[in-house]
């Protein structure tokens, strides 16, 4: 069989698109995290802007709404001096019947250099990456249930920032793992970077046991799942899951899987608590934990800008050919 190259890498093994953490070597993940490190300090400057992407155009294509992710991509692109064009596709061409590839072809004709794509369908960013010119780059900002690589990377950055090394870490991912692209990206990131143990914790309907194939330990009991953990990643309970008979009610979910201060005491005393946002306070996580000393939820948002700057500047410096 013909060996098929990872579509994210060029023939020199350099990153040209960021579509998924899955399949990226640890060296590339570390390069992204190291590069992000150098962008964190841009915040300390009087001029919070560097000219790396001056004269380039970043198109934010959000076929699905996401204010936070779109905003952090926009800030990241602007701090790199790129021109940023936000397209609310959900309300424009697509609704008039234009196909995805026609939309991309038209925007390419407007001299786009980077497409940041959020799409409800898994794989949409791959399709786009396959059809763009060699100097154009695609960054997946979340596709269906598949992947959310920049969130995964910013989670890895946050963990590395507070815990330094992955090799001794036990990480618990709590909540709706089944439908979560964040969880999937986190699991690939953690296993690639060599975390000692990754646990996924939640009810059987949201954390099926075949997830163990991804190299994680499946737990259906919260207390057992977070015992002696170094890192707890809580996932948002998506309201739309209530209607599908996957859960009885938010209250009941909270009773069994909500992260309270009492339960958090079972983790290591210096454990950090993360959440990709938006938070449902009192459902998957108690307010006292969100605002508590172990919470690093807001630093995650700040690091997200540096991580997205790193992704954009790295892919922009590599040609597909």
């Amino acid at each position, binding site marked *: 069989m013909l060996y098929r190259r990872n579509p994210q890498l060029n023939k020199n093994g350099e990153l040209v698109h960021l579509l998924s953490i899955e399949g990226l070597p640890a060296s590339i993940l570390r390069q992204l995290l190291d590069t992000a490190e*150098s962008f964190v300090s841009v915040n300390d*400057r009087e001029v919070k802007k560097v*000219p790396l992407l001056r004269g380039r155009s970043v198109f934010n294509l959000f076929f699905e709404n996401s204010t936070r992710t779109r905003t952090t991509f926009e800030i990241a692109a602007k701090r790199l001096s790129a021109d940023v064009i936000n397209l609310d596709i959900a309300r424009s061409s697509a609704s008039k019947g234009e196909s995805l590839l026609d939309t991309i072809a038209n925007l390419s004709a407007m001299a786009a250099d980077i497409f940041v794509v959020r799409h409800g369908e898994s794989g949409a960013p791959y399709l786009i990456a396959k059809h763009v010119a060699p100097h154009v780059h695609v960054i997946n900002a979340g596709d269906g249930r598949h992947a959310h690589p920049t969130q995964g990377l910013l989670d890895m950055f946050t963990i590395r920032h507070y815990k330094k090394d992955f090799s001794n870490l036990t990480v618990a991912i709590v909540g709706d793992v089944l439908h979560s692209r964040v969880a999937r990206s986190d699991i690939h990131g953690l296993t690639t970077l060599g975390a000692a143990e990754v646990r996924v914790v939640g009810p059987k309907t949201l954390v099926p046991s075949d997830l163990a194939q991804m190299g994680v330990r499946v737990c259906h009991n919260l207390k057992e799942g977070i015992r002696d953990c170094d890192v707890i990643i809580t996932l948002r309970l998506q309201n739309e899951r209530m209607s599908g008979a996957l859960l009885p009610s938010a209250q009941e979910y909270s009773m069994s899987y909500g992260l309270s201060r009492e339960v958090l005491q079972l983790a290591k005393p210096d454990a950090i608590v993360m959440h990709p946002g938006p938070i449902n306070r009192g459902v998957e996580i108690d307010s006292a934990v969100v605002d508590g000393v172990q919470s690093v939820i807001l630093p995650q948002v700040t690091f997200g800008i540096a991580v997205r700057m790193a992704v954009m500047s790295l892919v922009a410096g590599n040609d597909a050919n």
Partner: protein
Amino acid sequence: MSTGSTADDTAAHAAEAVRDVPSLVQALARGVGALCRPGSRLVGIATGGAWLAERLQAELGLPGEHGVLSSAMHRDDFAQRGLSAREPTRLGFDVNGAHVIVIDDVLYTGRTIRAVVNELYDYGRPASVSLAVLIDRNGRELPIQADFAAARVELPVDKRVALRRDTAGVLSVVIDGLPA
């Protein structure tokens, strides 16, 4: 005499001039000492210049820690070479109103200096910026000169000269990757 041997002679002369690194560092220390005024700040360009700035800070008995400047964010060859993530910029002082002495190992095209001066200005408006280098070589592509150079050498254009530091912290000069 063939052109080749002239080039070799030039390289041999240059190698001779930069072989004794401890003496060059002493000369650089004296030169930087003369450029210093009360409140001057030493800032080395990552990575060779930062090694030298660290030495000079101690040698000249200056208080605090030396600064580090990275050219990565302002390089003009980003489109060709992509991002080089090395040691990031670290300035532990207020750049506004400061007298900054930029230290580098080799002054060549001048492009790195252009980049780091831009980088410095992202942190504030210094009162003055001067430049001291260990080795000033031919090949300038911008109107940039050093205020002090411990050695000035002529090299064939394709030869690369660089400072190296071994695990014991000993500095040496290499030309095209080989010891000078």
